[in-house]
């Protein structure tokens, strides 16, 4: 089917793509205008002049910066911890004759497919009774618990496909389970781990509902929750809100462009088995 595309293809796709990106382009424009300009000429007008005032206000007081730092800490810790635990579980389930391993795997997956709202109230009570309510640690733990099943499922699929011969050789050479895991399984799983890491990073970074469930003090909020607060504080300063939104979107956009290949394969991992 190597027929040439009709020129209509581009005639339709170029305006469509621009329209698709319009919200992003528009928000960039709003973020670069000053408050008086928006007040005087309306939100829909093109900028009269460009200024970084919106960004300055959004970043002033350091709240957004703190929130970004919180998000970074939570995301890094939660991604590393959940992938590490998921890899352990997947290794045990895929490479050892554990009774009922298939049921365990499916139960773990099913647990992660529950709608989170069922868990919100008890999770918030549990963190309170453990004395970790309103700490970043609580958010990390919750994120890990709530992502594990899915990551385990994906890694299990990948590890099952590794050639048996490698494991037999390791066994003959006297390698124990721990060493086999560390020096054989993990290196071989690097592509799957990279894909999952890219995916998990955006999921955890973008989360709002768990942050609102286990955190209370606004200096501990990750960026998503902090932005909603910013919106409350500057309800009509659209340039500030737009600037804040862009600041929040930049890290995931970077992850996306740098790891685009892993990201897309992460979305497909599990879908394509």
């Amino acid at each position, binding site marked *: 089917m190597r027929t040439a595309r009709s020129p209509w293809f581009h005639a339709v796709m170029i305006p469509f793509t621009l329209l698709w990106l319009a919200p992003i382009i528009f*928000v960039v424009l709003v973020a670069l205008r000053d408050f008086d300009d928006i007040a005087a000429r309306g939100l829909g007008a093109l900028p009269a002049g460009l200024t970084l005032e919106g960004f300055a206000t959004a970043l002033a007081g350091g709240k957004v910066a703190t929130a970004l730092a919180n998000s970074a800490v939570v995301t890094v810790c939660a991604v590393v911890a959940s992938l590490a635990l998921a890899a352990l579980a997947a*290794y045990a389930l895929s*490479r050892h004759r*554990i009774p009922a391993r298939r049921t365990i795997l499916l139960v*773990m997956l099913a*647990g992660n497919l529950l709608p989170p709202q069922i*868990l919100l109230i008890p999770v918030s009570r549990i963190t309170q009774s453990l004395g970790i309510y309103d700490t970043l640690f609580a958010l990390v733990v919750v994120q890990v618990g709530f992502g594990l099943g899915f990551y385990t499922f994906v890694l299990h699929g990948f590890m099952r496909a590794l050639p048996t011969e490698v494991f037999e050789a390791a066994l003959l050479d006297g390698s124990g389970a721990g060493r086999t895991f560390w020096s054989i399984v993990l290196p071989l799983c690097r592509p799957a781990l990279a894909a999952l890491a890219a995916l998990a990073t955006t999921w955890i970074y973008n989360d709002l509902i768990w942050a609102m469930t286990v955190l209370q003090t606004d200096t501990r909020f990750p960026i998503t929750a902090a932005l909603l607060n910013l919106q409350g504080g500057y309800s009509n300063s659209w340039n500030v809100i737009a600037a804040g939104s862009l600041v929040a979107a930049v890290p995931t*956009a970077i992850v996306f462009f740098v790891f685009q290949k892993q990201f897309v394969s992460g*979305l497909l991992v599990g879908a394509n088995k």
Partner: protein
Amino acid sequence: MTAVQDAPVRTGAPPRHGRRRRRVPPLVWAFLLLPLAVELFWVFWPAMNSFSLSFTEWNGVGAATPVGWENYERMLADPVFATAFRNNVIWVIGFGGLSVVGGLALAVALNRPGRGVGIYRSAIYLPMVISLAVTGLLWRVMYQPGGPIDSGLGAIGLGSLQQQWLANPDTALYAVLIAAVWRQVGYIMVLYLAGLKGCDPTLEEAAAVDGATAWQRFWRVVMPQLRGVNTVVFAVTVIDSLRTFDIVWAMTRGGPYNTTQLLSTYMFQQGFTLVNLGYGSALAW
């Protein structure tokens, strides 16, 4: 979340030779039990708690009073619950339907490589990396009175349609829905693009030689080959639409007059803003 299809097939996997492998070393048990314990404690234990809480009345202080089925009876009589439930149905159909149709159409259009196709694809799945909360804020700006949507409508002579999109009870839910679809379409497109890559092009050529129209080729030849992807897309869509919370919370918090309330946002409001923990739990189930 993806991947519900294809439970493990037993080929090649677990090493079934050698008697030494049959005994599972204690270390491996530890490997399994540690993550399992984390998930049991943070997912299954709260889920059970939530279920038992739903039969009580509790404001978070002191002891919970058991009330039997009262919360569920109250739920059935609650008009906001009815709205939230109806909205959830609209959401599953509207959000699911539009993003699947849009994603599939774009995947078919952008399937063959060519000049600019990569750019179009990236542009369409770019929104997916933006968080739902930020998407909500972006679109709040779009929908403001005097914002680009109103100006755009004015420019093409549809000025009469200009309105307070998010403050008007008739349009608010759909306004939020459009924003959510905008973000989801790229995801569905990526899934279908992968599915189309796995289709056999010779089948389509054969059908074309036999005189099948493009429409027939698509429905009779390509679609049956996409069955696996369809299952995944269906699961992803249903799960994502039942989870929707962030974008509604960021855009309207369930307002105006509860017209954009979904079960998740109403539950959050009852449980956390109004601290009716028992009733909130019942809503969650």
